[in-house]
């Protein structure tokens, strides 16, 4: 194996490497916190957002972290509902990654709304006609489910054995796992697709208005969610010089990811063909032309979303020879995550950058909005990523997230 992909660190250097890693993340987190404080004090004027492009980087981050957190419900469904027990060893990691994804999303959302002090309003004031209301309620409820699924893992720590009652409680919670998995599956199926519907139901924006968006969102979330969980599992294993899950299990999960990706690609290509190739809808054509002339939308769509984020990883994960090479597998999983993230950015920005013409005149024709995240937005995003990575690192170090696995000798 090439040296560069041999992530294992010799025992003597581990302590030092760990503290360097934590140090880097700590600095990122502090910088992010400064950005967050600026947002709370100065308001959203510190962002590059406008009335024409009111959603940007943070919404992309919300959507991406929720999508890459989808491994939790996927594996819960496989293990507890389909009762395929062999995937059990990765289910915990999936729940943990899911929890980090959802909490990151909620952190970003809390910053993104104009009145964070009113975050609780959707719980009290219901507008059942709003997709966003449904998403908010599902995300809140699902986060609670994730916490309940995860609590037993925390209570397994030696530290908590001093309170025997906690142990009993956590055992009860653990026994209820299938119930949580069922509820979690229902909630996830609802909101993962509704996030696509958030755009898909807006009849005033031709480029978004299509029933395929919710389905594409959930398929890409399943692929992205499994990828994130598996990627982190392999990386942690390599760092600790251990085979955390069996090779066979890793190959099986890779294959599932590959097939999900194929389903996603199939739908995505048909969506493109039906809306832009075989048909002509003035709104969509107009918006795409505008996007093509002012943004790298078309290039990123074909190169990153379809080819690098879809076709290439699908080939790697479905080909026996490539799949058995960890280097290629890691590359494929990383590409999928990048592809899903770029997709969320493209979807969010496309409908906003190319707004519909409403004036009966012709001048309005050339107006396209623009958006560039400010440094403040970027450092906040970095801070949120740092939070997730820090929590993940400490979780892996101190909690029984991963099975011990076998020491790899080479």
């Amino acid at each position, binding site marked *: 194996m090439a040296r560069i992909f041999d992530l294992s660190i010799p025992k003597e250097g581990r302590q030092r490497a760990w503290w360097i890693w934590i140090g880097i993340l700590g600095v990122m987190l502090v910088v992010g916190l400064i950005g967050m404080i600026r947002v709370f004090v100065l308001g959203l004027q510190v962002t590059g957002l406008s009335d024409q492009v009111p959603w940007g980087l943070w919404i992309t981050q919300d959507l991406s972290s929720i999508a890459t957190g989808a491994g939790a419900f996927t594996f819960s469904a496989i293990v507890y509902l389909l009762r395929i027990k062999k995937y059990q060893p990765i289910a915990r990691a999936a729940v943990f990654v899911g929890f980090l994804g959802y909490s990151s999303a909620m952190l970003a959302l809390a910053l993104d709304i*104009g009145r964070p002090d009113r975050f609780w*309003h959707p719980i009290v004031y219901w*507008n059942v006609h709003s997709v*966003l209301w449904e998403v908010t309620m599902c995300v809140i409820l699902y986060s609670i489910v994730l916490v309940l699924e995860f609590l037993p893992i925390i209570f397994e720590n030696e530290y908590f054995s001093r309170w025997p009652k906690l142990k009993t409680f956590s055992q009860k919670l653990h026994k209820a796992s299938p119930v949580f998995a069922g509820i979690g599956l229902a909630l996830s199926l609802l909101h993962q697709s509704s996030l696509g519907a958030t755009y898909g139901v807006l009849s005033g924006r031709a480029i978004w208005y299509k029933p395929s968006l919710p389905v594409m969102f959930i398929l890409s979330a399943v692929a992205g969610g499994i990828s994130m969980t598996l990627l982190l599992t392999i990386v942690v294993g390599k760092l600790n010089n251990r085979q955390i899950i069996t090779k066979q299990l890793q190959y099986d999960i890779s294959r599932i990811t590959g097939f999900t990706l194929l389903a996603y690609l199939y739908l995505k290509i048909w969506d493109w063909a039906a809306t832009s190739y075989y048909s002509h809808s003035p709104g969509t054509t107009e918006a795409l032309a505008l996007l093509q002339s002012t943004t790298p939308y078309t290039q990123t769509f074909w190169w990153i979303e379809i080819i690098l984020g879809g076709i290439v990883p699908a080939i790697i994960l479905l080909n026996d020879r490539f799949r058995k090479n960890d280097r290629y597998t890691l590359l494929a999983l990383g590409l999928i995550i990048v592809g899903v993230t770029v997709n969320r950015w493209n979807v969010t920005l496309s409908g906003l950058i190319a707004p*519909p013409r409403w004036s*009966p*005149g012709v*001048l309005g024709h050339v107006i396209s909005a623009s958006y560039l995240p400010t440094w403040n937005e970027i450092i906040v995003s970095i801070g949120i990523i740092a939070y997730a990575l820090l929590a993940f690192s400490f979780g892996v170090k101190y909690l029984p997230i991963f099975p011990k696995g076998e020491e790899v000798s080479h």
Partner: protein
Amino acid sequence: MTSNTQPEGKNKKKRKPLVSRKDFLQIAGATGAATVVTQLFTSGPLSPDAIEGIGERTHSATGESKHNWCMGIDLKKCIGCQYCVWACQATNDVPDDNMRWNIGLPERTENGTDFFMTRPCLHCQEAPCVKVCPVGATWKRKDGIVTMDYKRCIGCRYCEVACPYDVRRFNWKPSTAENPYHPTWGSPEVERRTRGVVEKCTFCSHRIDRGLAQGLTPGVDREATPACVNICPVNARIFGDHNNPESPITKFVTENETFRLREDFGTEPRVHYVRPEKEEI
């Protein structure tokens, strides 16, 4: 199996009854707490009705109103003086020119005729902004006016994303500036909005409500008519009750060939336009 949750020494304890007293107390306690919390949010001090008195009930738009407020804009008449824009800013206290509720911009038709396009909120019958608001802060009154509860808005800006007419404005920063349009173009009649909420044109609903209470007719009596309609020096803007066959707006729609903006969106706007030039058929 990866979980090793079996604690040691547990099984040595004496057998417990199926439901112990402790279990019972726990269940009873949890049920009680759940009831209290539910009550707190449904009819107690945290209920929608109690909080700032802006409950769900006050926002329901079910049932029919006697009125159906609509506006007419004659693009043939409009001279682009911007008076309507400034009067709106003064009356609704919008000091920031980037946040104009009512906009006017030079335009040209496909045939090369120059005209001025002006647009307030269109108060759509099927308003996308009302459908998408997660907290019901934007709602449609029985009389068709799409209005907002600024105390309920959380500032998520989904309404801005949903509105195809670029009508909505978000308070990106605190609005503290002096209103440059006061007193020349009017005086503020409504409270200024706080940072972090979205705002929008209300068809000057405060004037309509007050006028009706005084027995006036909006669209005819100036005190009960939107500021932009009153100020127009060429009477390009018309307002009134579309349910009333004698109202200025009903006459405007029957006497002119009118259209509404992007009817293909299915939004059913309440603002009717007359084309800037005769349509060549």
